């Protein structure tokens, strides 16, 4: 089915959104199982996730997805019922299957290369887990047989293909007694209910089908169905739309009344329904009264894809009785919160409007200032209130765009699995701070660089198992991925416990490739930073894994494009750690508005530690063009901003000069010499066109109250550049 001009497209889209959530829950639960912390509910979550994906896929005729999910689900059912144990090997396969399931979902959504081959490989592996011989095809023709509890959902696919007409034919109705029964569940003692069900004409007119309802009842327990044909007229006067039949069902089940009634949720008011409990004879209850009580099973709430089609609605039902609605703590919390899905465009619009509001407010305060109003007058205090509100609105809007990095980290755990399998290393991923929230765009654009770094860690960072044992380490390598908020920025760290950077080799490669002169004397950290030079790749053999012609320079460029920075630390024998520091949002920042050489510039406030005024005696020259200033006993390098940006010649007289003490990510400090501090305010970040020209030391631009554009500095970049002036070859790499 094509997505264009398809009335189903929207439903389909929401199915895929749902799939993403289910896949996330699936990954989570598998991870819990892998950590050995599972309870009976964990496996149920896995099972339900796979099952729901299959159910939805069936409704959309995504056969490949259904086929795979079906088999996966069958195996998970084995685990759930305790017939099979989920040991480490099995879990490995389960993880692969979960990955593949998400591939299939993506394939169904976006098209692209058909992952059928991988399907077959994994199906074979799943079969092997079940102790079955042979490929997947053998067991496929009659999946229902091994799949008794859930047979319903698979049957739905053909039903949606318009075969409802056939089913309306009385003769074609399959004997209900042949339907599979649920294996008895020992939740509570089975009760006997008598259910009288008489459809009214509207039931047929709205496309409902008694057969499906009866079959759903079968899923709840043992049902004896008697059909009352007494009202059936002679054939020549039979009107197909008229309801002539009614049914009496003796149902033996553990399910609650509300659960039984929820089967009929979609035919509410379209039929006469009488439910009598066998234990207490006189409790006839009408559907409308009972339905509000159906709060017990959130999982049975019909999902968006199925809600439109009344017929499939019983599909999610069967899973519910077996699994009481008690999910993993994190997902449970998420489920309780009520959530609105909003088109991202609308949020973008809101963000832009708030941006305009901030600029507007800046202009307003400028004109009020120009008007020379009394400092404590109504206008000024009103403006202060306005500023506070603007800031609150801004924070709230940014919160809308913020997302936990969890989804990103989950993708990385998949990368680890694939990467470690490719290079034959045992790797365990530890994650921390998954709940850390970052702007959605940042998360999206972080995926590629982070993937590359993770692959690097597995491929280059960690040693081969034999080498690890020789070095006295456990054979299983550890990769750690952490996220945290630190002083207004997000810090994401990727670290491994591998051998660390082989500095002599890095240095040799850089010299061999002509990236630095052969006689370069570099500090350890400078050698580490050679990894970021374009054209540098340490892999002596280009492996399939990370040797894809993408170096760390691309990673750094991607991080810089997000307004972030990346730093590297390495301890020989103990491992390497990459630290990415990112702004929380891409839209606004608190800035210090300064003036240098007649240009107005903005310095991100979070990097400014303090402001200084020099006395000439405090500044001393180390060598021509390089000065340090004494700040409370410590020598701090001086960077002349005007000269560094090429706006004017370097100053020679430092008496009375104003400087900002800037702290670098790695903790080092520098004094950024400027002419004047003008203001301190929030500025809206306007990106500079990337493809056009990327100015070194400039992070972005903003529009000031007077309508002029001011550039937003990246002080760390400027200071790094300035520090590396004497080493010409390095500079090329840094300013790229």
């Amino acid at each position, binding site marked *: 089915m094509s997505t264009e001009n398809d009335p189903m497209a929207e439903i389909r889209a929401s199915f895929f959104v749902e799939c993403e959530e289910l896949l996330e829950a699936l990954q989570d639960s598998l991870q819990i199982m892998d950590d050995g912390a599972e309870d009976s509910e964990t496996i149920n979550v896995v099972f339900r996730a796979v099952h729901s994906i299959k159910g939805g896929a069936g409704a959309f005729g995504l056969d490949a997805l259904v086929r795979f999910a079906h088999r996966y689900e069958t195996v998970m059912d084995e685990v759930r019922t305790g017939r099979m144990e989920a040991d480490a090997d099995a879990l490995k396969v389960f993880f692969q299957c979960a990955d593949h399931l998400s591939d299939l979902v993506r394939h169904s959504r976006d098209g692209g290369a058909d992952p059928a081959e991988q399907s077959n490989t994994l199906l074979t592996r799943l079969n092997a887990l079940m102790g079955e011989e042979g490929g997947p095809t053998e067991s496929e023709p009659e999946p229902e047989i091994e799949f008794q509890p859930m047979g319903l959902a698979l049957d739905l696919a053909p039903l949606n293909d318009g075969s409802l007409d056939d089913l309306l034919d009385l003769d074609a109705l399959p004997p209900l007694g042949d339907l599979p029964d649920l294996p008895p569940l020992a939740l509570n003692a089975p009760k006997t209910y008598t259910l009288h069900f008489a459809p009214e004409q509207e039931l047929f007119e709205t496309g409902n089908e008694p057969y499906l309802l009866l079959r759903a009842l079968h899923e709840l327990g043992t049902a004896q169905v008697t059909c009352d044909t007494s009202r059936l007229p002679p054939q020549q006067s039979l009107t197909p739309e008229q309801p002539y039949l009614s049914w009496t069902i003796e149902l033996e089940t553990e399910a609650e009344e509300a659960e039984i009634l929820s089967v009929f949720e979609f035919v509410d008011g379209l039929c006469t329904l009488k439910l009598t409990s066998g234990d207490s004879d006189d409790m006839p209850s009408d559907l409308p009264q009972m339905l509000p009580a159906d709060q017990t099973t959130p999982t049975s709430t019909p999902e968006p894809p199925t809600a439109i089609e009344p017929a499939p609605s019983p599909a999610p039902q069967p899973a519910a009785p077996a699994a009481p609605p008690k999910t993993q703590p994190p997902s449970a919390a998420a489920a309780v919160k009520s959530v609105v899905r909003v088109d991202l465009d609308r949020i973008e619009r809101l963000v832009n409007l708030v941006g*305009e509001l901030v*600029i507007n407010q800046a202009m307003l305060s400028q004109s009020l200032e120009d008007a020379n109003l009394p400092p404590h007058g109504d206008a000024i205090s009103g403006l202060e209130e306005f500023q506070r509100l603007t800031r609150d609105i801004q924070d709230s809007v940014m919160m809308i765009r913020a997302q936990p990095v969890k989804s990103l980290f989950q993708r990385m755990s998949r990368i680890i699995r694939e990467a470690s399998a490719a290079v034959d290393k045992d790797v365990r991923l530890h994650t921390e701070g998954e709940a850390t929230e970052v702007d959605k765009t940042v998360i999206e654009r972080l995926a590629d660089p982070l993937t590359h770094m993770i692959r690097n860690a597995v491929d280059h960072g960690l040693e081969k198992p034999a080498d690890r044992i020789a070095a006295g380490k456990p054979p299983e390598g550890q990769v750690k991925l952490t996220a945290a908020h630190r002083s207004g920025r997000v810090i994401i760290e990727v670290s491994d416990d591998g051998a660390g950077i082989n500095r002599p080799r890095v240095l040799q490669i850089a010299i061999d490739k002509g990236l630095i002169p052969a006689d370069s004397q570099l500090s350890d950290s400078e050698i580490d930073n050679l990894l970021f030079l374009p054209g540098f790749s340490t892999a002596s053999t280009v492996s399939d894994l990370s040797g894809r012609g993408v170096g760390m320079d691309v990673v750094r460029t991607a991080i810089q494009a997000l307004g972030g920075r990346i730093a590297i630390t390495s301890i020989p024998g103990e491992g390497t750690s990459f630290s990415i520091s990112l702004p929380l949002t891409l839209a606004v920042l608190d800035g210090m508005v300064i003036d240098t050489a007649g*240009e*107005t510039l903005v310095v991100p406030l979070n990097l400014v530690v303090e402001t200084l005024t020099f006395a000439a005696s405090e500044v001393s020259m180390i060598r021509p063009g390089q000065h340090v200033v004494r700040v409370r006993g410590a020598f701090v390098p001086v960077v002349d901003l005007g000269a*560094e*940006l*090429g*706006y004017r010649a370097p100053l020679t007289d430092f008496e009375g000069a104003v400087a900002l003490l800037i702290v670098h990510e790695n903790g080092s400090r520098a004094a950024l010499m400027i002419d004047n501090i003008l203001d301190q305010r929030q500025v809206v970040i*306007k*990106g*500079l*066109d990337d*493809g*056009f*020209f*990327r*100015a*070194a*030391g*400039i992070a972005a*631009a903003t*529009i000031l109250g007077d*309508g*002029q*554009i*001011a*550039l937003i500095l990246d002080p760390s970049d400027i200071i790094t550049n300035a520090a590396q002036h004497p080493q010409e070859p390095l500079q090329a790499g840094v*300013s*790229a």
Partner: protein
Amino acid sequence: MTEHDSPTTIELLTFQLAGQEYSLDIMSVREIRSWTRATPLPHAPACMRGVINLRGTVLPVMDLGERLGLPPREQSDRAVIIVVTHGDSMTGLLVDAVSDIIALTRDDLQPPPDMANGAATGMVSALTLIDERMVRVLDLAATVSLQEGLAA
């Protein structure tokens, strides 16, 4: 030059640079603005005049005369910024003055003579005669692309 679908007729915006006449396909011209001071970008090539505020968007402005390697001259009072779109991005082109809009057929365009003569080579895609004056038609993509000579 951004082609538009009209098979035979083409409209050109003509403008002056150092006393010479140049033109651009009018379909790529978005608007014309009077000159406002641009905020200079550090370490930018000489032809980059900086960025200006175009109704909330940061618009890079390029000195077209400098870009084409024309002799330096006083900025005239009639200097304007032609805002052009190319692909997804916009650029402002600083020119001495805007002259006219002319319509002609594609047959009136002649390929420039194949002479390797300096910076403007490749940026002029065609020549045409209007009232005995030669007008150069610029290749916008080649003009605004700063790739060559800018590998930072």
